[in-house]
């Protein structure tokens, strides 16, 4: 068990507090990551397939808005609308997965979507650009010359090549998120590692800050390593010896 010392303020050991908060952060990070990957790549591919169409222009405008809007803005707006005004998700509070999976998901949907919105826009643009770029490659012409349907050409041949940079970014994103989504956790008052970090900084509680920073660094290093290993599966030309 790593020893990060004791809090200056409460004199309690830091590590147990972090492990207690970690499930919240992991729930938020993994859920948001899955949503952003699926919607982002999906919208990106559809846009690439129908370049210049109404769907393409509409989704790319939304994507531009998504990239541009800061999370503390979208989070507060979504809270105001969905939690207070229309009360679709009223009284948000974190429920552990082990306790009640349905309540767990229901209370996390809003933070997930808010956090995913920002990044799925990034993924959509990345996927669209990557797919369109690959569509100019010689092997795409070969795929068409075989008589494949356009959909298969785009998805199996075009998207497959565009996927590598997306996986790179996805891995780093997940690593970053696991270190604590500071703004989202604070906005939705989720008792995760990010919120803990904000408290620690406000209280000048150095051991807590140290622990959170080290943990975040650890996740990023591990995510990097996993991405590198994943490359072998993704790109047959990559072999480590």
């Amino acid at each position, binding site marked *: 068990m790593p020893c990060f010392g004791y809090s200056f303020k409460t004199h309690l050991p830091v590590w147990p507090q972090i492990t207690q908060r970690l499930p919240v952060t992991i729930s938020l990070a993994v859920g948001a990551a899955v949503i952003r990957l699926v919607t982002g790549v999906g919208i990106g591919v559809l846009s690439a397939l129908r370049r210049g169409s109404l769907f393409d222009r509409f989704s790319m405008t939304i994507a531009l808005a998504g990239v541009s809007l800061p999370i503390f803005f979208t989070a507060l707006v979504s809270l105001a609308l969905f939690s207070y005004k229309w009360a679709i998700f009223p009284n948000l509070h974190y429920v552990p997965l082990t306790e009640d999976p349905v309540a767990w998901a229901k209370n996390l949907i809003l933070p997930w979507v808010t956090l995913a919105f920002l990044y799925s826009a990034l993924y959509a643009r990345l996927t669209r650009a990557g797919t369109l770029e690959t569509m100019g490659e010689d092997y795409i012409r070969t795929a*068409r010359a075989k008589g494949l349907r356009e959909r298969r050409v785009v998805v199996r041949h075009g998207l497959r090549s565009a996927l590598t940079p997306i996986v790179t970014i996805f891995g780093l994103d997940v690593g970053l998120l696991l270190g604590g989504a500071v703004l989202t956790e604070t906005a939705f008052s989720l008792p995760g590692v990010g919120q803990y970090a904000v408290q620690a900084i406000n209280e000048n509680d150095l051991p807590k800050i140290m622990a959170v920073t080290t943990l975040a660094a650890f996740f990023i290093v591990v995510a990097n390593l996993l991405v590198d290993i994943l490359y072998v599966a*993704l790109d*047959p030309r990559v072999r480590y010896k």
Partner: protein
Amino acid sequence: MSFLEVDDLKVTFTTEDGVVRAVDGLSFAVEQGRTLGIVGESGSGKSVTSLAVMGLHRTSHADVTGRIVLDGQDLVAADPDVVRRLRGRRMAMIFQDPLTSLHPFYTVGWQIDEAYHVHHPKAGRREARTRTVEMLRRVGIPQPDQRADDYPHQFSGGMRQRVMIAMALVNDPDLLIADEPTTALDVTVQAQILDLIRDLQQEFGSAVIIITHDLGVVAELADDVLVMYAGKCVENGPARAVFDSPQHPYTWGLLGSVPRMDREIQDRLMPIAGAPPSLIRLPRGCAFHPRCPFARLNGTRSYEDVPELRDTGQPDHRVACHLDAETRARLFREEVAPKL
């Protein structure tokens, strides 16, 4: 009617600078079991012609008119999905650069399986694999059952071109278009690939169009030759006739630009002066006249009239040149032939 008939084919691209006339009224025909060589400089419209026949121009916003009739069916007017179904099954294509024409992330076996599967949707995985291995064996890849599981980067350039050929022939196409199939390869490998294409054609009896700027390749393979310049046919006829008594000054220029190993050492090659014209603003009259050393013999006609394809007197041999047959024969005999 021939197996493939192209009639008055025009392919234009609209760009910001103007309309590019990549192919401008091209007609030719290929019979099954015959090989047509299309020759010309870069930008003469050779590749665009082949892409138009395959229906692969649609992605580049090209405008195609005229008729491309494959076995009685017009491909220009046909629904894109109909052409797609023909693609890879009845007509197949080999591309210039085997290094970039195969998908780097899939095994070559998977890629050939896919080409087979798309036109044989009911075929099982094992059937497709058997066919793939059989094709790889036929194009001369050693240990085909093991190599099928290798990725393109594990093959040499020549081997990758063999894979491309195997992929093109997996569905027994009636028409094979080879677009500069040997340009990216070593000279020794070039000869092997050409031999392979010829052998496979004899075996399968398909019609072959070979597109190249290399007259050596044409001499090696083609039964008929079509010389293209600025999107038009300037000379076409049986390979023997075109090589023995070339009629067009452009063809003379092409022949003069080829180094010959079987002759005394020449002083220097005779390149064609100037560069190919812009396809947006073609020279008036005969598109070749600014580069033609004999254009002045016609007075003002060279830049006033577009020359039509005319019979040369030899069977099936036609040329588009304002010079009359006698003058051409004299020029070739006295000025061109001694230097070739």
